[in-house]
């Protein structure tokens, strides 16, 4: 059918104009959010950093298990069941029960209403798996118990990461969950990720503990080293105050000593605790400990009751600023490891854009010249379809604010090369048909009809490859699959609406000519 209804022609034109408008809006600088959209440039084109962080949950698990032992002891004591020989072997809590209590202990642990070993209806699983061996009980985290624990710690960590990145003030960071123990941080435009990396690499667990000479302290003691010296000190395990009680921290200049310090203020509970501890501990050294290292250990000269204080410790202004930032944003539940980093400098990004555009223009011109050489007037039609195709492709990517990457640009160029395929298939078919059919209109019609299944088959196979790449690929490669996939759809549109419309107009007008194609 070479005939097109007016309505169809008009809608094709409107559709094309709309998307071409969006394509062109990338190059204009309108402030209107709706009418001037832009393709997002991937990190490889605009420069920036991509960091993949993984939470090391082991310390959290150990902590929780230790807390669980205390909870178990208390719970069974309340039920007047005596258990003994509690121990933690790796990730397994072990304890012994007496012969006559075995049944009851087992029931309390395995009951669906259990208070001590919570049952999750949605997962059909308890928090802990219980294994009984004679009178020995082994408890370890069930699969879902572990999943829930990891999810909780990921939620907490992502919040802290977001606060820290926001505090540094990079433009439009992208912070996303990946699986149940990873966080993806994308920082567009960031040239030097070192500062962010060092900020994210710290747990920022701040505690205040007294230094003691007496190793027989009731809370136990631990030996810790100083941050920037080779000195060590024995500190009490009793935590006077932790970072949780901080409400604010900022770098300031101490006017007396003329050094940079971090001054902090505490919440009500913290101020009370701090006041009490400092009034009983006058004359003692109070160690300020960050992530297991002593920053400084000033001697308490008088009770500090105002709820604010200072941390000194050979800071530069930068390091004081960073410490204040870490304290303000709070401690991470567990250490984060950077397991993947990709950074592209802005000038390389610009070079890639330039090279990409240059090769797009050259590739495009080569294809256009070749098609005119091969098909003359019909080559022109195919080329018009190709140009529309390019506008539509960029227009759609813009409308959906898709991310354009360097492989994505390659995908566009590849689309240019492969898009003519459909028109070539049609034209070749028409050539064959004109051999047996004298009426050009019928021959053209047959050419379109008979090539349709082939064109669909051929494009669906590429679409399948693009689809799989989209779901399996990551980062820049994903950008390739998007342009390749969208490119196929716009190709089919431009071939069956634009090129066909132009072909039919041309054929109807020149039907008296001897050899059209």
């Amino acid at each position, binding site marked *: 059918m070479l005939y097109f209804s007016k309505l169809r022609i008009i809608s094709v034109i409107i559709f094309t104009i709309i998307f071409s408008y969006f394509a062109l809006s990338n190059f204009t600088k309108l402030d209107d959010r709706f009418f001037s959209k832009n393709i997002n440039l991937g990190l490889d084109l605009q420069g920036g950093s991509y960091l*993949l962080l993984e939470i090391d949950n082991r310390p959290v698990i150990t902590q929780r298990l230790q807390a669980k032992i205390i909870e178990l002891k208390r719970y069974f004591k309340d039920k007047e069941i005596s258990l003994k020989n509690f121990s933690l072997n790796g990730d397994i809590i072990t304890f012994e029960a007496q012969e006559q209590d075995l049944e009851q202990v087992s029931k309390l642990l395995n009951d669906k209403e259990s208070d001590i070993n919570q049952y999750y209806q949605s997962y059909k699983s308890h928090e802990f798996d219980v294994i009984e061996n004679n009178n020995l009980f082994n408890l370890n985290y069930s699969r879902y118990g572990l999943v829930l624990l990891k999810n909780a710690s990921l939620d907490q960590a992502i919040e802290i990461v977001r606060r820290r990145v926001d505090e540094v003030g990079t433009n439009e960071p992208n912070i996303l969950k990946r699986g149940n123990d990873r966080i993806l941080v994308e920082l567009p435009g960031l040239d030097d990720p070192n500062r962010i*990396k*060092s900020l994210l*690499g710290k747990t920022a667990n701040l505690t205040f503990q007294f230094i003691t000479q007496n190793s027989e302290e009731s809370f136990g003691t631990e030996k810790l080293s100083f941050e920037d010296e080779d000195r060590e000190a024995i500190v009490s395990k009793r935590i006077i105050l932790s970072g949780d009680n901080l409400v604010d921290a900022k770098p300031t200049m101490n006017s007396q000593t003329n050094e940079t310090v971090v001054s902090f203020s505490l919440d009500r509970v913290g101020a009370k605790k701090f006041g009490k501890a400092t009034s009983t501990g006058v004359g003692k050294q109070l160690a300020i400990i960050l992530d297991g290292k002593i920053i400084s250990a000033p001697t308490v000269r008088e009770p500090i009751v105002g709820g604010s204080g200072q941390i000194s410790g050979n800071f530069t202004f930068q390091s004081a600023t960073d410490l204040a930032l870490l304290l303000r944003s709070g401690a991470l539940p567990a250490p984060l*490891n*950077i*397991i*993947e*980093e*990709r*950074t*592209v*400098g802005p*000038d*390389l990004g610009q070079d890639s854009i330039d*090279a*990409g555009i*240059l*090769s*797009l223009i*050259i*590739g495009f011109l*080569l*294809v256009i010249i*070749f*098609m005119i050489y091969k098909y003359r007037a019909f080559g022109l039609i195919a080329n018009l379809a190709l140009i529309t195709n390019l506008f539509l492709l960029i227009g759609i990517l813009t409308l959906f604010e898709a991310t354009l990457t*360097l*492989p994505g640009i*390659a995908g566009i*160029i*590849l689309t*240019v*090369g*492969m898009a*003519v*395929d459909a028109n*070539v*298939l049609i034209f*070749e078919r028409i050539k*064959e048909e004109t051999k047996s059919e004298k009426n050009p209109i019928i021959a053209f019609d047959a050419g379109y009809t008979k090539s349709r*299944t*082939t064109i669909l*088959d*051929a*494009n*669906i*196979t*590429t679409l*399948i*490859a*693009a689809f*799989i*790449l989209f779901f*399996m*690929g*990551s*980062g*820049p*490669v994903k950008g*390739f699959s998007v342009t390749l996939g969208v490119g196929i759809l716009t190709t089919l549109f431009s071939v069956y609406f634009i090129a066909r419309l132009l072909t039919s107009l041309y054929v109807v007008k020149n039907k008296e000519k001897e050899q059209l194609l």
Partner: protein
Amino acid sequence: MNNISFNKFYRKFNILSLILIITSLIFLIIKGLNYGVDFKGGTLIELRTNDKTNNITMIRDSFNQMNLGDVSVKKFGNETDFIVKFEKQNSNDPEFIKNIQNKLSSSIGDVDFRRVENVGPKVSSELLKSGIIAISLSLAAMLLYIWIRFEWQFSLGAILAIFHDVIITLGIFSIFSLEINLSIVAAVLTIVGYSMNDTVVIFDRVRENLRKYSDIKIFELTNISINETLSRTIITSVTTLLALLSIYLFGGEILKGFSLAMILGVIFGTYSSIYIANPVLVALNVSQRTIVKEEKD
């Protein structure tokens, strides 16, 4: 209409393909692939020196002094641009890259790190796994699609052609120690799509001709079909190759490997749709009955 006797050379080219595949497999098994940091883990730094007198040896020496494991240095496009790769990846130490840059500046003068990629062992093995899964999945999807659309003899021909293209492309990467990274996986997937596309166009014609002529043997019939679709095959390969060549020559260093893999894939894809896919139909003695029987079902 072209009339080239492609079918006369089926046997010769099949032997050639067999030799190429066996050679590729031997290289793939014995030498293996040259995995980039994406799949092997480690660190990649693209650097630009301000001093034109710096050469590869100087840069390699200064990196070797830093105890970073196996170091490889290569020129990357420009006179002053280099790609350095080494085994050690210590992304957890925030100062790691900074320290390298400082040490380097003191030994060879100011350097600009244009790109840094640091991939841990866990991530690289996951990326490798998902790359292999992606390629296998797309092969399976193609198989399924063509199985639905055609008879099994055709599916077998198309799949053999795809395997042929992928194995030889990877074989060439192995022989010349070209780097395999994430974008090569994308290239391989696109090759799979392209090769399939090309085969499907010829097969569609074979099927059409099978219906049309009941008295022509498949050996001759494939040749007719190849000739009928030949100008399309050539034009499409040429336009695709023109686009790819443009990426290869002007698209910058980062896209070189990708476009090279694609160029090889298009060449072998075009070749295999003629010389692998069609001989399979001949060998399986496909006839009008093959498709008629199918259509009655």
